[in-house]
Each structure stands twice: as C-alpha cells, then as structure tokens.
C-alpha cells in the first residue's frame, strides 16, 4: 500500500496503525497484512507506481504539486487494478464523492480514527480478494452467475416482501372488514407478481439462448413474421397507451438463425419502444437486408434517455430510475438478453437517444457466416 500525503504525520500515522493490523475473511486462506510505503507529492507517487504498482493507494486530495485527482487520472489510465482511497477533509466531501465517480474506490474523511482506517482497509482488502476471485471465476466462465445470483435474489425478494406485507395488512384487517377497501392493496400485489413473472420469463429466455447449440433450430427466418408477431403481442398495451406501431419493409428479409432468438430480439426492442413511450407516441420498425446482412431499426418517440445511461443499458438488471420510468415494470434483463443473442450471431446493437425526444435501437446481423456454416448440420 502507498500513502500519498504531504503531511508526514498522516503517513507515519497510517504506517503505525497498519503495522500490526491483519485482515481475516472466511473465504481467504490466510490473514493479510500491509506493507506501507510513503510519498509526499503526487509526482513522487506516480514514480513509485511506475516502479512497483501497489494494491492500494491512499491518496490525499490536496497535494503541493499536482493534485490528487491527477494521480487518480494517471492510475485510471495506467494501473486500473489499483484500488484508490481518497483521504479528504469533511469540507470537501462532495469532491470526494465526485472522485469516487471518477474511479476512486472510496474515501476516508479526515481526521479519521485508527478504527476507521482499519475498517476501511479491512473492507478494501476483502474487495481486492473478491476481485481476484472474480477474475479467477471469470476465466472459468463462472463469474457472471456469482454476481448474477446475488442480484437476482434481491430482485426476487423485493416483490415477495411487498406482497407479503400486503397480505399481512389484509390478514390483520387493517382497513376494516370491507373487501372493497383493499382494492389498491390487491392491485399492487398483482402488479408485483406480474413483475416477478416478467423476471422469470426473462430468466427462461436467458437459459434458452444459452442452451446447447444442438437444441437450436437453425433455419431461414422470415423477419416480417417475427416483427408482426412482436407487434401483435404488444398491441393490447400499445392501444392502451395510444401508441402507433408501424412496420416498414421494402422487400422480404430473411435471416438464418433460430426463430426463438429472433423473437427475443424483436419482442424486447418493440416492447421497450412502446413501454418507454409517451401517450400518443409512435414506433417505427425498419427492416432491410443487403449482401452483408440484416439491419433492424426500432425507433420511438418516447422518453429517451441520457447519454451516460445508454452506456449501461445492455448490462444485466440495469433499469434507469427516474420519475418517468418508476411506474413501468420490468426486470432490467431484456436488453442484456438481446445483446447476448446478437453476440451469438456476431452482430452488433447500437442505441441513439435523446431525453424526451426518443430512442433508436439499431441491430445488425451479418449473413454470410451462417450460410457457410449450415452445411455441417
């Protein structure tokens, strides 16, 4: 670990506190201790990091020469594995929060007690351990599930808690004996159950696309039919929201693939375009094919999203939370599944969006590869 602070007192203090401190963790084979090195300026710190990158950098924000944030920038660019903790006075907490957004792991408000330092070092150490674990699992293809299961349990527990709470309210007759006084309670319970069902359906999709190649049924899939199917299934909801969905195709377009996979892609994009639309809005689906492959574009006039949000969309369980989306149910899995499918076909998906104007999702699926591979089966 490297401490970067222009106050020698802090450096030696940290050294003293951590000298005989070890962290133990049920999953770790042995306790971990700390080797503490000191730098008094940012320049010195960068030099040190170049020579022998530490696991942890404890970084004071205010330094005599270059600032802490510049050191952080350097680490972000060159040594992403290093965990950076910012030391900061209470006055500049906001800055520290910003730094954590810029990739610092966390911050310790100054002055800190030995116990506080130890606690956060304990936590960082566990994080380093988990990270290395995750890396190892990642190599074996297990990482996704490890994280996935914990978020999943969270996503399943929330609606269960909600429904359970409502049932208790009814059991205790908290609104009296008149059943109609419980309409809202029943309504919300059904909503949450519906949300859970969506989640489970999405999970089934997920297992299906990850199923064995031999379970896939590759054939020429007519995209017009797939698109029409998608429109049909969202239609009740579209009518309710007065959203017009139009399909534009100049010619028949086919793609070689598993019909299930194509349905997953189309259904998710079209249903999102309706779900995240305004009342009276529109959705245009454009499908076109050329020598290279197939282009699918789903454009809506809906609520759109900010640029920083578009970057996270395709990750599992990502839902954008704001006033406009809070009453829309969803698992946050749909687009991650779409992305997985498209990756299977070596295609790509892009999104362009503007808040309050709408979003356009563009999918490209290359054709050639699959034509030539089909001969084997």
């Amino acid at each position, binding site marked *: 670990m490297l401490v970067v602070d222009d106050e020698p007192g802090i450096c030696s203090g940290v050294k003293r506190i951590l000298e005989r401190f070890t962290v133990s963790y049920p999953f770790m084979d042995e306790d971990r201790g700390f080797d503490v090195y000191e730098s008094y300026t940012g320049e010195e710190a960068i030099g040190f990091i170049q020579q022998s990158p530490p696991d942890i950098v404890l970084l004071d924000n205010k330094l005599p020469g270059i600032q802490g944030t510049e050191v952080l920038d350097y680490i972000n660019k060159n040594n992403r594995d290093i965990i950076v903790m910012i030391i900061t006075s209470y006055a500049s907490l906001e800055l520290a929060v910003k730094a954590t957004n810029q990739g610092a792991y966390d911050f310790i408000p100054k002055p*800190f007690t030995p116990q506080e330092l130890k606690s956060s070092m304990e936590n960082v150490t566990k994080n380093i351990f988990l990270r290395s674990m995750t890396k190892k699992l990642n190599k074996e293809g297990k990482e996704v599930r490890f994280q996935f299961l*914990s978020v999943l349990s969270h996503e399943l527990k929330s609606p269960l808690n909600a429904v359970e*709470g409502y049932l208790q309210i009814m059991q205790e007759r908290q609104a009296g004996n008149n059943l109609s006084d419980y309409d809202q309670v029943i309504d*919300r319970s059904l909503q949450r159950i519906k949300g859970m069902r969506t989640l489970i359906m999405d999970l089934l999709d997920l297992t299906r696309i990850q199923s064995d190649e031999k379970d896939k049924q590759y054939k020429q899939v007519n995209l017009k039919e797939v698109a029409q199917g998608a429109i049909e299934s969202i239609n009740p909801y579209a009518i309710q929201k007065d959203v017009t969905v139009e399909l534009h195709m100049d010619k028949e377009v086919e793609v070689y693939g598993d019909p299930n996979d194509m349905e997953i892609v189309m259904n998710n994009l079209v249903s999102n375009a309706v779900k995240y639309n305004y009342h009276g809005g529109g959705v245009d689906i454009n499908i076109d094919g050329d020598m290279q492959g197939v282009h699918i574009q789903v454009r809506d006039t809906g609520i759109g999203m900010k640029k920083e949000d578009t970057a996270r969309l395709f990750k599992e369980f990502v839902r954008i939370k*704001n006033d406009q989306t*809070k009453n829309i149910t969803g698992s946050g899995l749909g687009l991650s599944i779409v992305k997985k499918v498209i990756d299977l076909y070596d295609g790509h998906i892009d999104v362009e969006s503007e808040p309050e104007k709408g979003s356009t999702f563009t999918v490209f699926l290359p054709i050639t590869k699959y034509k030539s591979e089909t001969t084997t089966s």
Partner: protein
Amino acid sequence: MVMSDKTTILLADDDVDYLFQMKLHLQQSGYKVITAESQREAEELLQSVQPDLAIFDLMMETEDSGFILCYKTRRKYPEVPIIIATAVASETGVSFGLNTEEEQRWIKADLYLEKGIRKEQMLTEIKKLLKA
C-alpha cells in the same frame, strides 16, 4: 414523557410498496411520516424539514443514493439518527460497493438493516435510536 408534537420520520425508498407499507406501519405506531420516492425528493424535503429520524433505501437513482443522503443529512442535521435499509442479499457473500458492515460503520449511518426484517424489530430499533 408526553410529547405534544409527534416524532417525525423521513422515509426515502423507490419501492412504492415498501414506502406505503412502512409508512402505514409507522403511522400506526404513532409516528408522523414524510416520504420521498427518490434521492432527489428526499434532498428537497430535507431543505425545509428536520426529521427526528431518517430511513433511507440504499439503491435509488444510483447504487449509493442512500449513502449520499446520509452524508447530506449528517451535514445539515448532525444529530438526526439514520437507518439505511436495503434488500441486497447478504447471504451470497458478495459485497456490493459500499454496503458491508465495516463500510457502514464509517459511513456513519447509525444502523444498517435488511429490509426483510420483521416490522416489530424495525420499531424496536427505531425506538432505541430515538432514545439515544
């Protein structure tokens, strides 16, 4: 001691059902409850109201909304006890960013609770914090 004014609890959570149920429960236990459905709403409320206790969900607009609220509340009203409640599963042994017990200790929320806990238990904890 008889209190003329009811104790006010600020409750921030983006799960509207949790919000509704918790509010009901706390009201029945004699508290006055003000609610916020987002970090932003809670921040606005904090401008004008000083609650006697605050309960924040951890993940709202961002993964650490609860912590940010915690800091902001602490800075404005240093004496107000704060509970962070979350449904993140601790059983799986994976730490999510800032929410291990150790972190909670120096984040300085007064209590870190799992949402699944029984309502009575939550009440006991609230009473403890209000007395302290």
